[in-house]
């Protein structure tokens, strides 16, 4: 029971791909354009989603190596570096010595594997994080937009081709 539930959860996880939704919509529309029966239109959309789920389950992505964990002290320094402050300015702000900051910077650099620019990229800029949206909202919105794009592309190609064929 639990195994089935887990498989289901993984399947739903695969469906979070907006492109799956976009392909399904575009295929259904293309089937409609080519004069498919109603059942064929529905079936092709469902089949595309099913193939995306199956392919995702059979060919999973390689797991991402865990991100290096910075201590809270290191994280504060990294953020300040990302903001573009020099080590002296940071030391002033934190009422400590520049040498201490230099040492911390070297430790962060070793953890991340890179210089000051990499540190900035790792912790992001100072701009506020966007409000988190729910994942399914994100999937549906992006999928619909992409699907609409594919459909308009299809419509254009269809019209061009029938005009060529009619000549």
């Amino acid at each position, binding site marked *: 029971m639990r195994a089935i539930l887990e498989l289901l959860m993984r399947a739903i996880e695969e469906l979070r791909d907006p492109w799956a939704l976009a*392909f399904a919509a575009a295929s259904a529309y293309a089937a409609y354009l080519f*004069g498919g029966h109603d059942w064929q239109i529905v079936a092709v959309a469902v089949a595309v989603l099913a193939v995306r789920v199956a392919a995702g389950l059979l060919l999973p*992505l390689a797991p991402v190596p865990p991100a290096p964990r910075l201590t809270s002290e290191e994280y504060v320094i990294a953020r300040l570096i990302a903001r573009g402050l020099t080590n002296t300015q940071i030391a002033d702000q934190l009422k400590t010595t520049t040498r201490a900051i230099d040492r911390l910077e070297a430790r962060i650099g070793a953890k991340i594997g890179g210089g000051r620019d990499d540190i900035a990229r790792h912790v992001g800029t100072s701009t506020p994080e966007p409000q988190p949206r729910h*994942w399914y909202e994100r999937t549906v919105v992006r999928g619909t937009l992409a699907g609409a794009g594919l459909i308009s592309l299809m419509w254009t190609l269809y019209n061009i081709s029938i005009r060529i064929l009619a000549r």
Partner: protein
Amino acid sequence: MTLARLLGPTDRPGPRTNLRALAITAAFAFVAVSLIGYGNSGCVSLVVWSSNEKSQLLQDIAEKYNDTGPTVDRRCVRVQVSTVASGDGEAALTRDWSPGDATRPDVWWPAATTWVLLLKEHRAERRLSDIIPAVYQKLIQSPLVIAMPEHMADAVKSSGEVVGWTWLLKFAQDPQGWSRYEKPWGHFRLGKTNPMISTSGLHALIGTYNAAAGTTGQLTPEDVRRDDVRAFVRGVERSVVHYGESVARFLDNLWNADDSGDALGYVSAVAVEEKHVFDYNRGNPESLLCDPLCPQVAPQEKLVAFYPSEGTLIADHPYVILNWVDSVHRQAAADFQRHLESDAIQRFQEEGFRDQNLSAGPGLSTKYFDRQPPRTRLLLPDPPLLAEIQASWSSLRKRAHVLIAIDVGRSMTTLAQEQSVTKLELAKRAASDAVGRLEPDDEVGLWTFSTNGDKPYREVLPIGPLGTGKSELARRIETLEAEDGTRQLFATVLAGFDHVRSRLAPDRINAVVVLGNGVDEGTQVNFYDLQSTLRRQSNDQRVRVFTLSYSAASSSQLRQLSEASPGAFYNAADPTKTIAKLMRDVISNF
């Protein structure tokens, strides 16, 4: 709550793009859509069965319609018109068709609602599903008329008599014939077609029944079963020259007679539709397409249409979208119907049809036609009675006095085209089929030729009534075998002709039917002498020769013999015609 937990945290990071899975999905989507596109790439083909007289015109209209690129549900539509005589269509539709059959019609466009009612009745009798929709549109119309050659029409008109079915019977039974009008044209001769196949024939039969019962309202079963009514109908049938399986065949014979200057000798009146008269008068007896010239020149002796005084029936051409079609075909059929009603209706009017309001087109000139709608329109009887009337014909029709001559020469043992049986076997089947269609009091005899005896033919069974059993003749046909003699075709035809003539039955249709395969192989009889003997018969005592050819070689001789008498020629070498259907056509003449 549980769902929220199942779906996970709100701010999970966006999924990473799984490029391999997406590539597979995209490839699958492409293949699946291509397959759907391929599967639906063929056009929707709409099979329309049309009756003879409008079929070529309709084919032309359909071709032009196809060129406009009609679509239904984004699929192209191709209209295919097949020529199926109304009665044949009715007979073919009384069985169930498999949905996969590409020749199964989607639309049936017979010449008259009469056939639709008959089909409904016949299918109900056989407990088959109803394939006729509750509503169907009648698109074009053509009333049944009594058509007479112009000179005869003038003679009748100047006498001031009113032409109708009653007049017809009186005139037909008058032994004076045309001398009543001081004209030298002999007896009154009526041309009619077989009511089992032809709309004109069926409508003429109903019209005669109406006249006999003296009613313009609906016929009742009591009317139809009355003895005096039956006697009246039998009387009208007796004046028939010979029946044709179609109006086209009949008018073609008339045109040939006209060509040799004897139109008045062939027939005095024919019961046909107005459209047929229009076509005949412009040199198009078979209602083909005049584009812009008609297949033949206009006849010398035009036909004049009389609208029976008792009222007439109207061929109203119902466009029947059969119930068994799917929604795509139904839409396609409806779209084609709209095209016929709007754009094409003028075309039909120009070709001699009337529109839904019975208003005539420019072609129906006042010289030969009455442009006004017929004053009285006879009502069709109820379907069961209609079927009874149609069935009654075989017992009321003029009887046959016929000799069948079958070629049994060695060449008949060759295999027939595209069939795995010998020609002789086919001929035997045809003959048995013919016997089955005749009535017990029809008189039939059987000869064979290309035999070894001293005479050019051998008498297998002398001419005599078939009798109720029909078994003797059928058994004789069954035992026929091929022989090695020389084929003395002309001598056989002449001997058969003389034989029938020597015992001529004036109240029957006298005929010789020849089933032949190959040319004459040297007899003493000259072909041209034989032709002129057949041609120069007295009109009141004619023996007609009907020929059926099994090989291309013999076609021309047999055709000329049949045209001389004049009877009709049927080509069994044409693989599109089944032998059973041909024989049915031959037998329709009796």
